[in-house]
């Protein structure tokens, strides 16, 4: 059965396509984003407070490599098959080499509804995977010249809203531990799924606005938006097996790899590679890959995980 939070997405998408007057206030969208990032961070931090941190380092190195590999693969496809210009290819590749928090949240919810556990470090992996693709994308577009203002860029990336809230939430969850967090759990834990539902309703509305752009762009972008997550998923699955994740962790890492950023990366590329057309990357990441992942992808990645990788929940 399709999860109820995904039904909210489908409803938002349908309302948008039918040109309903439905419009949610901008401040609500921002608030929901803040809430979800904090909640994911807290949950991850709480888990980490119960285990040693040192074994994490090789895992983080592995997922950084995963992000780099995805970006290069996407760039090759976009240049070679899609005949994209250098800047457009680099910017779009960065979207696909990075990750989407919303997709991660839907994956978390999918596992939670089915009572499948996963490693707490998935949150830190999520935060870490946002970044390398941005760096690779810029180098692909510019070379390692001096044109790029790396200081400003590092600032935007590491102190952007998403990474700040994820890491801040993790630090709080880690410092407070399970007991210390108890007072705020009625908000950050119990309301997580309902808030995610509202957020996905808004995402549906936003995704519906990508359709016009998609129509202009033709089939390559649709094909890329469907194929690239599948290729990335396989890379993610292999990486997850190499670092020894559980079934739930494997599903989440595969989902993360398959996901494409639509917040951190567009903002960074807008400033670092401004000549790339942001509409193309967003149309693919938001208009094709995001819906594909949350509706079809996640259950499929879990099936992959359990059958091909032989992991048992």
């Amino acid at each position, binding site marked *: 059965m399709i999860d109820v939070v995904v039904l909210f997405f489908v409803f938002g998408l349908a309302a948008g396509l039918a040109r309903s007057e439905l419009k949610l206030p*901008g401040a609500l969208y921002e608030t929901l984003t803040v809430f979800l990032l904090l909640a994911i961070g807290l949950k991850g931090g709480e888990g980490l407070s119960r285990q040693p941190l040192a074994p994490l380092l090789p895992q983080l190195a592995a997922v950084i490599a995963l992000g780099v590999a995805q970006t290069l693969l996407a760039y090759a496809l976009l240049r070679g098959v899609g005949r994209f210009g250098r800047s457009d290819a680099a910017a779009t590749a960065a979207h696909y080499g990075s990750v989407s928090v919303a997709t991660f949240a839907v994956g978390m919810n999918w596992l939670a509804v089915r009572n499948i556990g996963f490693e707490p470090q998935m949150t830190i992996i999520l935060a870490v995977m946002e970044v390398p693709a941005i760096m690779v994308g810029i180098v692909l577009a510019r070379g390692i010249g001096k044109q790029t203002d790396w200081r400003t860029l590092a600032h935007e990336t590491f102190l952007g809203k998403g990474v700040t809230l994820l890491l801040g939430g993790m630090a709080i969850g880690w410092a407070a531990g399970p007991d210390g967090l108890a007072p705020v759990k009625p908000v950050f834990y119990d309301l997580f799924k309902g808030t995610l539902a509202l957020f996905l309703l808004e995402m549906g*509305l936003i995704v519906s*606005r990508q359709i016009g752009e998609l129509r202009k762009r033709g089939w390559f972008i649709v094909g890329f938006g469907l194929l690239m997550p599948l290729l990335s998923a396989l890379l993610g699955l292999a990486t997850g097996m190499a670092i020894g994740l559980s079934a739930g962790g494997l599903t989440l890492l595969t989902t993360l790899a398959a996901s494409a950023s639509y917040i951190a990366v567009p903002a960074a590329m*807008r*400033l670092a590679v*401004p*000549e790339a057309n*942001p*509409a193309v990357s*967003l149309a693919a990441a938001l208009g094709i890959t995001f819906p594909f992942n949350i509706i079809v992808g996640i259950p499929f990645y879990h099936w992959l995980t359990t059958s091909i990788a032989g992991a048992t929940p």
Partner: protein
Amino acid sequence: MTLPTEHRSLVVVITETALEQTLLRDFDRLAVRGYTVSDARGKGTHGVRDAAWDEAANIRIEVICSRDQAESLLQHLQTHYYADFAMVAFLQDVEVVRPDKF
């Protein structure tokens, strides 16, 4: 009663929200002494920007300054941003009572 006023220029820039910090840093570097920012949405050659989320939102920046500074601001925008960003900028004439402030 006739109030003694002096003329200055008002530069108005309408552009992507994503540029806010960058532009304001530029303005600081160009010795702009004050500015006002408000949120907006709109439509132009870069399509409809309906402010449903930050990525699709606009801002509207106003700077009151001398004609010279106004022209160099416009020049700066034209050189660095017109090609790649959703952006509109224009000049107007305004009268102020504290000319030394602008």
